[in-house]
């Protein structure tokens, strides 16, 4: 695998959220892994790096879930309770309801690709950072 090049602006942004590599001098930094090689998860949970990661993840997935559920339920409820509206013919005999249904396909693709992109740019680098800092591999 080739290493992704970070643009200078992005790099600056990333480093702002790191506590800094100076923590190598800190005796605590060595104890992310105990003498048996087991990671100290409670300590990792408290780090800023982990909190940033958690915040980035939840601020994406929960609003997106709300969005696609709302869009899907709109389609379902309109089909069930606004029959005349969704029966409006649009292209030939294809009606608005079928088009709304196909629209769900489009939003699914957009959200999937959007998440893949977001994860690659915002989540994976932070995960890598956390793994390097704590010395705990995946």
């Amino acid at each position: 695998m080739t290493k992704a090049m970070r643009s200078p602006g992005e790099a600056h942004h990333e480093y702002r959220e790191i506590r800094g590599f100076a923590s190598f001098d800190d005796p605590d930094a060595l104890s992310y892994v105990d003498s048996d090689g087991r990671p100290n998860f409670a300590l990792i949970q408290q780090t800023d790096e982990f909190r940033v990661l958690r915040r980035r993840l939840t601020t994406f997935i929960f609003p997106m879930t709300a969005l696609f559920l709302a869009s899907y339920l709109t389609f379902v409820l309109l089909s069930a309770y606004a029959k005349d509206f969704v029966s409006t013919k649009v292209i030939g005999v294809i009606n608005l309801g079928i088009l709304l249904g196909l629209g769900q396909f489009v939003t699914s693709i957009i959200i999937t690709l959007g998440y893949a992109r977001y994860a690659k740019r915002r989540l994976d680098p932070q995960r890598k950072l956390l793994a390097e800092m704590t010395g705990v591999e995946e």
Partner: protein
Amino acid sequence: MPTTGNPVLNLSVFAVFVLITLYIVYRFSSRNVTASDYYAAGSSFTGAQNGVALSGDFLSAASFLGISGGIAAHGYDGFLYSVGWVVAWLVGLLLIAEGLRNTGRFTVGDVLAFRMRQRPVRAAAANATLVISFFYMIAQMAGAGGLIALLLNVTSKWGQAVLIAVVGMVMVLYVLLGGMKGTTWVQIIKAVLLLLCVTMMSIFLLGKFGFSLSGIMQQATENNRLGDAVLDPGAKYGFSSTSKLDFVSLALSLVLGIASLPHVLMRFYTVPNASEARRSVVWATWTMVIFYLCTLVIGFGAMALVGTDKIAAAPGGENSAAPLLAFEIGGAVLLGIVSAVAFATILAVVAGLTLAASASFAHDVYANVIKRGNVEPRREIRVARLTAVVVGFLSILGGIAANGQNVAFLVSLALALAASANLSTILYTIFWRRFNTTGTLWSIYGGLGSCLVLIIFSPVMSGAKTSIFPDVDFAWFPLGNPGLVSIPFSFLCGFLATIFSKREPEMDGKAAEMEVRAISGIGART
């Protein structure tokens, strides 16, 4: 002569095709998988391979036969299934795939019991897995039986029951004789074949109608009793306020249940890391979107070229729409190929389900609950095989009872069960720190129990002409699909039971470990 051609010719094309695919599968599985990575294939698959296999798990007989049949029979109302199946992926992608992959090993029980008291939670998770897999298997068995009945043109109920039993036994036998280790490759090969098959059929159909979907639908309305109205909602649902609620309930079960199915959840374990799990879902989304667009074309194509009445009268009922369409446009050869692909589909999904069910019983109940972790691997595998036989036998009986029902509808019951028992529990345990053992048990058993009770007392079981037991009437729950009630109920049970029970003492930092692993993936393989 029967309308579906010569049974001998049908069957020989079918048999040749099944044998070729099984040979390919056998070659692949003996080359790639060793005995040691029995449950999760050594987490060795790439995201792309796993993505195709993952869509293979979804593209069951229900998707192919049931949904195209649902569209061919009910038009718009059948189309709901296609939409639900696609959107459901987002639940898996955003909420479940990575967290699950990072915290579990082989089964759903691994994740649910991660930071809880092991024995009761593992037992509960295994019970849920067994019940869900059983319902899902019933649909596959009914689908397989109907398919072979169509090929052989068997119309009597008894003859079809014998066929379901024989086909079911062949499938279980295939799983027992070592087919399970190749499940992932079965899924990959079958998913590719199925996709090719539906894409070709769709392109052909569209071409026949001058690449106009509207043209296909226009002619479809001429071969359906409802005429134009079949393109509007309400052909199956929507005549009364109860049936409208039923439509919404079905929609909810579809979108929340699919990514909660145990054999689909297990599929997230066969990749080496979280980013591969994510890549596999992205791959699966593409195949899924193409496939379900094709079901729309095939469903309306079957209505246009075969006609709804003829489909309803064929052996296997609505489920015969796609095979009948294949015969209409490609004769016995295409019928044989489509049936063989559908059969390989069912075989692969049954193998995956049997694996999920027997793994959860052998790994969670037998090894961890009954034997408390002290068990030789050989005995665990013997128990797994025995479970496969029992689950197979029961689902053959269920398949015979459910013969003739739309398999996509039968699957929607399994989905309601999966969403009720698993979804609430998985989301709580990954994202809610306060969630505890009491809450876990309540949300699993509350969801599973309420859902089962509502299915038993629904019009699906008794009281209507289309029921499994039409001669008796003990139905008091009006909806055919209980998801609208049981899914919120399981969330509520889990929430209240947690709030009103004591905070659990921290178990060796397990809660912190789970959160860090689920979100970051670090330490997931230590």
